[in-house]
């Protein structure tokens, strides 16, 4: 199923009932109010609220939702439509849930002994959203809560049902650092300034990479650094699965890039799914930052895109 297909299916649930004829597990009671007040750090229920009567306490308005919570034994009274919506999202990988918004309007105080009933409607299901927690859909429900049959509050609640992002995102700062000595320090100085430098023998003119303090062709120790264009092609590549490498999330692609200048270098291949990499694919240089280290990487361009 495509993302668009799923979104269309989800939207079809808008306006349908989430709960029909819901009933609070217990009437509003002093013990639950006291429990709540102690947790929140506020004074306990006052049984002498003027105009209420002896032995009757008023619940804090913010407890509105508490009286309709399912509790440890699980949700009851949900409609088939709501269960289908949740199952659809579960199958799409959105197995985690987190509440994000709550809007409440308090129309009538709730008092001990009040019998609670409620009905809820699926007000909206959002398109696919990517959040820090992961990618998923926001579901907004609107619940009318009644006390002894009288409308007491309106409760609009929004949850995000999402596919959890990887529990531990690899930090590029943890990547192995380049090995730098006097023979190749110039290359990494170039990278720090966003220049990809290769060596050219000033005796025979041969361009070379990796950096060496002499020419493999003629043996001359004389050379100059020249800036590469950054254009190249994939000459070979590997998709790494095992073992785990700090700073990388497997599978990841490493390319052997042949530059337009004719030399080759190892680098990361970005912007392309590993399964779509092909030898000969054109690539272009980019610089990325891993912690305090600049690195040259190559973005792949798929034909026809």
């Amino acid at each position, binding site marked *: 199923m495509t993302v668009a297909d799923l979104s269309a299916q989800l939207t079809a649930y808008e306006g349908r009932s989430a709960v029909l004829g819901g009933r609070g597990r217990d009437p509003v009671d002093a013990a639950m109010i006291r429990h709540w007040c102690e947790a929140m750090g506020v004074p306990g229920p006052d049984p002498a609220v003027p105009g209420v009567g002896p032995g009757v306490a008023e619940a804090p308005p913010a407890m509105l939702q508490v009286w309709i919570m399912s509790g440890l034994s699980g949700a009851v009274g949900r409609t088939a439509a709501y269960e289908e919506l949740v199952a659809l999202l579960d199958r799409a990988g959105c197995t985690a849930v987190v509440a994000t918004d709550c809007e409440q309007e308090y129309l009538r105080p709730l008092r001990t002994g009040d019998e609670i009933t409620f009905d809820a409607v699926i007000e909206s299901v959002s398109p696919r959203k990517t959040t820090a927690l992961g990618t998923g859909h926001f579901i907004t429900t609107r619940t009318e809560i009644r006390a002894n049959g009288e409308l007491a509050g309106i409760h609009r609640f929004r949850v995000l049902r999402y596919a959890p992002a990887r529990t531990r995102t690899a930090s590029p700062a943890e*990547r*192995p*650092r*380049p*090995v*730098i*000595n*006097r*023979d*190749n*320090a110039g290359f990494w100085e170039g990278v720090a300034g966003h220049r990809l430098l290769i060596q050219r023998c000033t005796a025979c003119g041969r361009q070379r*990479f*990796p950096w*060496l*303090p*002499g*020419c*493999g*062709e*003629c*043996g*001359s*120790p004389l050379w100059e650094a020249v800036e590469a264009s950054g254009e190249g092609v994939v*000459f*070979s*590549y*590997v*998709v*790494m*699965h*095992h*073992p785990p*490498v700090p*700073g*990388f999330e497997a*599978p*990841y692609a*490493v390319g*052997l890039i042949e530059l337009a200048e004719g*030399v*080759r*270098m*190892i*680098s*990361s291949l970005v912007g392309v799914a*590993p399964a779509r990499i092909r*030898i000969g694919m054109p690539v272009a240089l980019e610089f990325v930052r*891993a912690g305090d*280290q600049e*690195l040259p*990487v190559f973005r792949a361009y798929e034909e026809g895109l």
Partner: protein
Amino acid sequence: MTAAAIVGIGATAFTKDSGRSELALAAEAVRAALADTGLAPGDVDGMVTFTMDTSPEIAVARATGIGELAFFSRVHYGGGAACATVQQAALAVTAGVADVVVCYRAFNERSGRRFGAGVRGREPSAEGVALGWGLPFGLLTPASWAAMHARRYLHMYGLTTEVFGHVAVTDRRYAARNPAAYFHGRPLTLAEHAASRWIAEPLRLLDCCQETDGGQALVVTSLARARTLRRPPVVIAAAAQGAARGQEQMTGFYEGDPGGLPETGVVARRLWRDSGLGPADVDVAVLYDHFTPYVLMQLEEFGFCGPGEGGGLVASGTLPINTHGGQLGEAYLHGMNGIAEGVRQVRGTSVNQVPGAGRVLVTAGSGVPTSGLILAADG
């Protein structure tokens, strides 16, 4: 007395702080010595240094224009190695395994190998730098380096990873019948190979050799002496080392086409030359199998088949390979157990004996400067 001589000397300036890498010093000294002889870098085919030296022979060769190497050797025990490097060179030259051998040693002993504000401790060596190019991109395991070659190999010849499976299946078939093998009694199918998990695509778990605790030793003496002992002699018909032009250690991606193994090509030419034999004369091949693709490339470099045809050759079974089960199936002892299997085949005592095996090719680790042997029956 040997029939060898020293024909050139060269050195860098002697300072308290060279300001250059140890590799740069070694390269300068080698260039100076060659200039003293009047020989060109390309005339050199042997190099000897100390085990303590941080500049590998192949790195010095890459930086001085020295091409293929047929002899490289290192001597242990610090300063005690000095004269021995010359002895090694003389042995190589008089034995005919090399024509021109350079001996060298270079270091920044005084300046403490420190440089730069951001680097603590010792300056990274040439060896570290060579392997280090892939580190920040997550290419840092032997399997990942081999996989880079393997991908190119498949691409060049339009093959699939099934060709690697043939090597794994063949090794494990022999290992299954070898009581000494770790995988004794456990053969493998192509489907099991194809189903094993990726390590570094295109290499799977079953393309990578096992790890082993163990040891293997061999005893060598003169043929005349050998003939007096209780076992039939296994003659070293030829022995050769090989390092290619631009040689690296597992990271030889930068020159030529990494679908082959040029260092193995050097060894192959030397072994065929020195033994007077060719691929058709070999009864058994024990080919170093740290990773399955390298077995195919070795078959091709030795001329047992054409480029890209290694998988088909292994599948056909016409050339017995790795009859002990290889390092994939028997044990991973850096190839020394493969030499022992070569000896057993010539003696006629292998558990997977090839009838009448009289000539065995044994190879060493490829992708790095390598070596090989042709073992033969006496007479």
